[in-house]
Structures are given as C-alpha cells and as structure tokens.
C-alpha cells in the first residue's frame, strides 16, 4: 500500500463497525484465524459483524455453521487446540445456553486439565443485553454463568474504542474469552468516535474511569455505564453531587484496584448492571469491596440490577425490571444521604 492510502481519513465509527473492523483486521493479520457461526458467511451475520469476510477469505476460514451451538464451540475448541485462532459467534448471546457444556466443561478447563499443554485462543461472542424489546430470549446478560466457571475470561466493552481494542486483545489472548456485545450500542450515534488507524489493543482486565467525582462511585459496564453518566449529570445539576463513574470493562479478570482507588475518594458506591441480581457480577463487586475495602465504606454498597425475573417482552414490563437512570440516581442519592 502507498503512503497516500495509509493517510488516516478521520471518520467516526459506531460500536458495530469497531467490532467488525477488529475481527476483519485480525483475520487479515492472522492467517490461522477462523470464524464459526450461524449465517456468518454469505449473509455476513445477523447483525453484519462478519460482512465481507466470506467473500475475502472464503469458506475455508469463514464457516456457516449448522444451528448447533455445541458444535460451534466444540469444533472451535478442536481447531483452537490444533493451532487455529477461533471466533465463535452466537447469533444472540442468549443461545449460548445450547452450547453451555462445551464452554464451561470443555473450553474452560482444557488448559488446566492438561497442565498447560493445550491453549485455546478463541473468542465466543454475541449480541447481548436488553432495552430493545427482545423478550426473554433476545435480551439476556448471562455473564455470571461464565464468571462462576473458572478458566474463562469474560468481558463487556461500552465504547467503540474499547470494543475494537478488547476484541483484538481477546483474539490474541490465548484463553477462551466470552465477549458480550451490547446490541443496543451497535448503532448508537452519540457514542461513535474516531479510532486510531494503527493497530492497538485494550488489555483485558483494566477498568476505566469515565467521569471523575469525589462524592460517590458508580460502577458498571456495558450500556449501564451511560445510565450512570446520565445519573451523574442529574446528581450534579439537581443536588450538586459529584459522582465518579467507573466502567469495569472486564469481569474476569477484574480490576479491583481502580474501584478501590475511587472508593478511597468517595467512600460510597453503587454498582449497576442489567443481569439478574442473585449471583450476578454486581454482587461480586459489592462483596469484594465489602471484604477488601470495608474501611473505605461510609455507606452500604448498593446494587441496581435487573429484577430476578426473565426479561418480559412488552415495553412497560421490560422497563419495570431493568435499571434506569432514575433508579441509579435514586440509589446514589440514598447512598450519599446515608
């Protein structure tokens, strides 16, 4: 390529494009990389994440899989242990339940059980999250299942920059990574951003401070980060409260330090995610804080999560069970006023 072509043309990209580009660039960079999933070939995937890959790399590297999630993962594991790097797409992350055993008992444990003989460079990714009216099976955030299954990394970016950098990091990680893509962010205009033209990664396991503040820490990931940012604005405008907003980005590995550092300032915390409350990762964060940063707490650490129900389909019901800016705002107020 000539220098001219390489001159960066600054354009903002959305979340979907960031992920798409990350995968495309890794496919180009790594001839041993394969993609497996339903309808990811000619169609280019339900959301178009793999558009163009089949044309460019052919059916030897891009597999239109049968509707067989266990085979998608299991075949991926086999190819990964035999020298390939695998991207497995779940058409919706909700369907990961159908390939569950292959993930938690085969992929997660292979490196451990073979005392390091087998590495599995593979990413199991898919569109996730609610608020889109998808109903019980097109809205899930089921990351807790995998956080409780040792041997898997579990991540969930919230910005195009992170989505691209973390996807690349995941595809180079060498461990099986379950990658949650919030589909409501895919085409969200107000988060589009310019991305570096040169190759970069965002290491897995590092939290990011999205907003600084000294009064209360709002910890979350995925689309709830934006609810926290809006709540922070409300708190500032209506109550003069300065909230610090942390986007953990990665559940496994989890960056405790960044959260504890913030608490050292604020001494108050609200954890927000859209997974069911019981045994969700919000609770994991709260218990790590309570156990390891107890002295930093001036008020009870609070959780704002999805209610312990399926995600109902019709809007009024769906919104009822999910976190909202208002719910985060109220929880923060309560914490600060404690």
């Amino acid at each position, binding site marked *: 390529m000539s220098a001219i072509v390489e001159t960066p043309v600054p354009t903002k990209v959305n979340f979907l494009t960031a992920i798409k580009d990350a995968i495309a660039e890794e496919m180009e960079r790594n001839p041993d990389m394969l993609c497996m999933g339903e309808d990811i070939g000619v169609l280019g995937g339900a959301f178009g994440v793999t558009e163009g890959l089949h044309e460019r790399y052919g059916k030897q590297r891009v597999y239109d899989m049968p509707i067989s999630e266990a*085979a998608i993962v299991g075949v991926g594991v086999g190819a990964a242990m035999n020298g390939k790097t695998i991207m497995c797409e779940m058409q919706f992350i909700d369907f990961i339940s159908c390939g569950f055993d292959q993930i938690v008992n085969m992929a997660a444990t292979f490196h451990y059980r073979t005392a390091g003989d087998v590495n599995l460079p593979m990413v199991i990714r898919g569109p996730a999250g609610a608020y889109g009216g998808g109903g*019980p099976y097109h809205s899930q955030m089921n990351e807790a299942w995998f956080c409780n299954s040792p041997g898997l990394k579990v991540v969930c970016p919230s910005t195009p920059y992170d989505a691209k950098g973390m996807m690349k990091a995941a595809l180079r990680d060498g461990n099986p990574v379950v990658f949650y893509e919030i589909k409501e962010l895919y085409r969200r205009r107000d988060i589009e951003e310019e991305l570096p033209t040169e190759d970069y990664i965002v290491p897995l396991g590092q939290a990011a401070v999205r907003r600084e503040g000294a009064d209360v820490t709002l910890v979350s990931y995925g689309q709830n980060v934006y609810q926290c940012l809006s709540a922070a604005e409300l708190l500032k405008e209506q109550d003069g409260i300065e909230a610090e907003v942390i986007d953990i980005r990665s559940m496994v590995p989890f960056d405790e330090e960044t959260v504890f550092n913030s608490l050292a300032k604020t001494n108050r915390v609200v954890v927000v995610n859209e997974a069911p409350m019981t045994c969700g990762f919000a609770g994991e964060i709260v218990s790590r804080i309570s156990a390891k940063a107890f002295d930093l707490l001036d008020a009870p650490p609070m959780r704002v999560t999805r209610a312990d129900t399926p995600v109902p389909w019709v809007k009024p019901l769906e919104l009822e069970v999910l976190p909202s800016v208002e719910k985060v705002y109220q929880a923060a107020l309560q914490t600060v006023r404690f």
Partner: protein
Amino acid sequence: MSPNTGTATAEKSGKDGAKVQPRPSDALTKEDCLELLKELYLARYFDVRLIKEKKRGRLRGTLYSSHNQEAILVGSLYGLRSEDWISPIHRDMPAFFLKDIRKGWRNPDRVGLSIGEICAQVWGKVESPGRARDNWSHIGKRDKKIICSTSMLAGTIPVAAGVALSDRLNGVDSVVLTYNGEGSTAQGVFHEAVNFAAVHKLPVITIIENNQWAYGTPVEMGSPSKDLADRAKGYNIPGLIADGQDVFDVYDKVMQAVEFARSGRGPSLVECKSFRAYGHGDHDDDRANKYRPKEEVEQGRSRDPIAVMKATLVKKGYLTKEEAAQYPAEGKNASEVTDEDFPPEVVEYVKEGIEFALAGELPAAEEALQWVFVDSQAQAYPQGGAR
C-alpha cells in the same frame, strides 16, 4: 407403515407407495375442500395484514412470514382432533388460530386460540394468553392444547414428548405435532427428543418445514442429505416427504403419521418441501435478495399453495374456473394484494381480531414481577394432596 421409508406403505412400494392405496384426502368432501381453501386464504391474509401493519410501523417484534408455506399449516392441522396438541414456532403464527378451527371460526369452545387472542399477542396486549410477556410466537395454553415454545430451536420437541407421555399414561388418545424448520434439526435436543420418542413409541409427529433456507444458510450447509426426512432413518422411524405446496399431500402424509401414532407404533418425521417467500424476517427482506439467487426465488415461489389447491379443486369439479378466479390472491406479494383478492369472510375475521387487539390494554408495569413462582403448594398442603 414401516420405518426408514418415505411412505406409509413402504414394503409394498417404497417412496411412491402412497399412490397405490387410497389416500386419506380422497375422503374429504367438497365442503371440507372449500373450508380448506378458505383456511389457506385466511393464513395468507393474516400474514399479509401483519406485513402491512408492520410496514406502517404499527407493530413491534420481528415478523417471520409464513407466505408460501401455508399449506403445511392448514394441511397438517385439518385432520387433528380437539384433544391433539401442537407446538408451533416463529414461522407458524396462523397455526395458533387454525387449530381446531373446523369447530367453528368463532366458536369459543374450540380447542385453539381465537384470532383476537393472537392479534392481542402480536399487538402486545394483556388479552393475549401470555399477557404479552414473551414474543409473537411464544404463546400457549394448556386447555387449548398448545405448547408454548422458547426461542431455542427444537427445544420444544422433548416437551412435546413429555406431554404425549403423560397423555398416554392418562389414557388420553392424543398425538402431538411439533413444527420445526429444516435448519433446526441440527440441534442436539432434536436428536435427544426424537430418539427418546422413538424408544418409547410416543405419538409425537415432527413436522419439518423445509423451506430450503435457515436464515442466510442453505439447507446443504446444515444437513448432509437434501431430504430431511432421511433423519428419520437414524431413529428407525418413518420419514415421510410431502409436497409442502399441496394441502392435500401434506394432509395425506400427516394423517398417515397420525394413524401410525394413534395405533401405538410411535413417532414419525414429516418433511414438507417448500420455499421461504421473503427474507428470514421482515428485517432481512433486502439482504435475502443478495444471498438468494433471483431464479431460485422465482422457482421456489412458482407454486403458490392457493393456486395449487384451486387447480386440484377445479379438477375435482369442486370449483368452476370462474369461482377459482374470483379471489386472485395467489402469486402476489403482500404489497400487491388488496382485500378484494380475498373472500370477505376471511377479511372480516382478521379485521375482528385486529380490532379486538387495538381495543385491548397494555399490561400494567407491576405485572412484570408476577408469576416468577407459583405460590408454593408445600406450604399450602403440608400433607400434600392432589395438586
């Protein structure tokens, strides 16, 4: 009917054995046939209306059109008894109100859901059986003998087997029809469920709607043989193939499977060959034109089930050419047809359903926290007792 063959009379004559013996459809009266035609129109018109409403932006949720596949639903349901069960999936919306519809379209006692209930579901109103807590095709009702499925393809087949098992234990002589796309037969649970049903000779009939495409994936990428009925051979059960464009052939093959099941000889697969008219869902219409060759689509849509049936009825002398030409809905896209292309009673019936839905109410937010658990009966009856 013997295992591993395409028909009910394999020993005699293999794949086309059905021809040499009287077909169940031969017994259908003129009235039956005209009713079947009307049901075809009804299924088509319902789909057409939903497409129009969706385009007008009046509906939420994805629309998986059953256009060009209606003969599978109408033909498979017509011969069932009230006590028989069904589990339709995403592409089978008309099945919910077509079940037991012979008992009278507006008969509240028929064992099927009303057009109003289905429209209420589509419009997301509390009047839907599931109070609109789950998407379009995820509805069911026990007393209507309809099993509510999840999105997870083929996931309802083991449930159907369990329903059949308990009916058999209770001495209820029912069969259970499950509907599945050809792509879904690659799911592990399909194998586990059909294998179990075969071991126990359960009256579970798995309808495979082979519309040649699973979303963007052609059948050959999902199955090693182009006849999905071949999957039956692995379970030592009958695998029948029906012309999915021909109501009568679907009726015949399904009734053969039903008789086989009722006589205690166990499950069958019935593959109905058809073709998906539009995109996978309405969101996919444009892309589908890219991944599906124009010729293939034209070819696949060249035998509209309404046209095929009219031709047969004319041959049978049940319709005059003029009568057949009266409501020319066949061969037209949703965008091309008007109400005039359909019998008025069909238009009227669907209109009633939609009005019922529009007059309905959205569920109240508080409902969202209800029905996670049934109040424990252990507490209520510490000594147990009948549930």
